[in-house]
């Protein structure tokens, strides 16, 4: 299973795929799943309490890779995604997933009907753990989360996340923001690492090492498909402190 430019991809109705594009910070990931609309749609955790079902390919330039599960695994995952998509379409409160960064408590968050049942503490998911948890929920874990270790550069990431959550438009209350900041243990699963795990997966969950290495290769693939245009310096400086975007949650 390899990633390709979404613009060139020809997904079949039975395909369930992962979509990777640039976010406000780093990359953003979600699912491409065939729906009753008769086409693939992009299902993703856009931001705090914002699960979105939109067009595929998404507006932002992206790459896409088909998940390597067998047909029953794919259909099982598709059904789970349909259940969530239905709730998103009905604007059900049961699918309001908070943005949260602590990996351990989130296991088992999703029930098969698509409802989100948060763990006891005020945690939540990122776009990356939204994907990994849904796969885990049908018995197809992509990652071996216990192998992930802290990286120094993610200290900046969590600060940026908390700034964005603090923006009133995010809808996050102070308690949740404080919990996110306090609960972060330095361990972050990056969207490109979830995508890489899907590429490497052959029946067993993938450790951090190979996922991190291949994740960087996928970022290079993304840059190849979606070249970054150089922006004027003034515009680059204005983007130093990102504002929360409703469409592309950092992960």
């Amino acid at each position: 299973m390899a990633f390709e430019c979404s613009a060139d991809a020809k997904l079949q109705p039975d395909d369930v795929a992962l979509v990777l594009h640039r976010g406000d910070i780093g990359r953003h990931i979600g699912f491409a799943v065939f729906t009753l609309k008769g086409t693939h749609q992009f299902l993703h955790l856009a931001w705090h309490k914002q699960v979105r079902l939109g067009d595929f390919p998404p507006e932002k330039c992206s790459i896409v890779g088909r998940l390597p599960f067998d047909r029953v695994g794919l259909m099982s995952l598709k059904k789970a995604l349909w259940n969530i998509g239905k709730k998103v379409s009905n604007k059900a409160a049961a699918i309001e997933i908070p943005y949260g960064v602590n990996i351990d408590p989130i296991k088992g968050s999703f029930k098969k009907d698509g409802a989100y049942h948060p763990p006891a503490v005020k945690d939540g998911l990122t776009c990356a753990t939204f994907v990994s948890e849904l796969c885990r929920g049908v018995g197809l874990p992509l990652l071996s989360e216990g192998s992930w270790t802290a990286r120094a550069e993610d200290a900046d990431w969590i600060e940026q996340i908390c700034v964005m959550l603090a923006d009133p438009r995010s809808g996050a209350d102070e308690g949740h923001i404080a919990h996110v900041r306090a609960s972060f243990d330095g361990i972050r699963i990056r969207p490109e690492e979830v995508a890489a795990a899907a590429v490497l997966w052959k029946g067993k969950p993938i450790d951090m090492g190979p996922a991190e290495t291949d994740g960087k290769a996928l970022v290079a693939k993304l840059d190849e498909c979606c070249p970054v245009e150089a922006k004027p310096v003034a515009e680059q400086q204005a983007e130093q402190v990102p504002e929360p975007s409703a469409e592309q949650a950092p992960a």
Partner: protein
Amino acid sequence: MLLAQQQSDTVGIPVFHGGSNGFGLVEWCDLDRFAAVVPVGWFVSPPTTPSFSSGAAWAVQEALKTKTVFALTASWKRLVLDRKAPVDFPHVSTIFDSVLRLIQTSGPGQMNMANLDAAEVNGELLVSALRASFRWRAEVIGWGDAVSVARKALEMANHKDIDLCLAGLE
């Protein structure tokens, strides 16, 4: 209180009809007809005070739960036990819906995957039932054994990639 005149072939319940000093008549009530006409208020928790009407309502409620378990179990098992059933999204979806509703309404302990015969099951559809109930595998009766049955059924069907089909379940 509504009474029916015939014993049901499915889940029947005794309905007590009587006054304050005892029940005067016991008849069998067809569950579906009873459920159709009894007001919602009849379906209450187990009675806290001894009273024939609330006791009977509780009996109805329990009987309906039994019927629900029976119907939902039949729904997923019917497909899993059909070796010729196509392994397609509608069938997988039906199995998922039945399994989820069963677990949500009656608890994972009411899902029984024990004593399946590999010679009788559709291996891939059994796998879909296993994936549907994956989160509750520790509480579903016979879940682990059903994985072994699925493997045998897939072998008997000459499935091309059994390990991939069962990935994450064993």
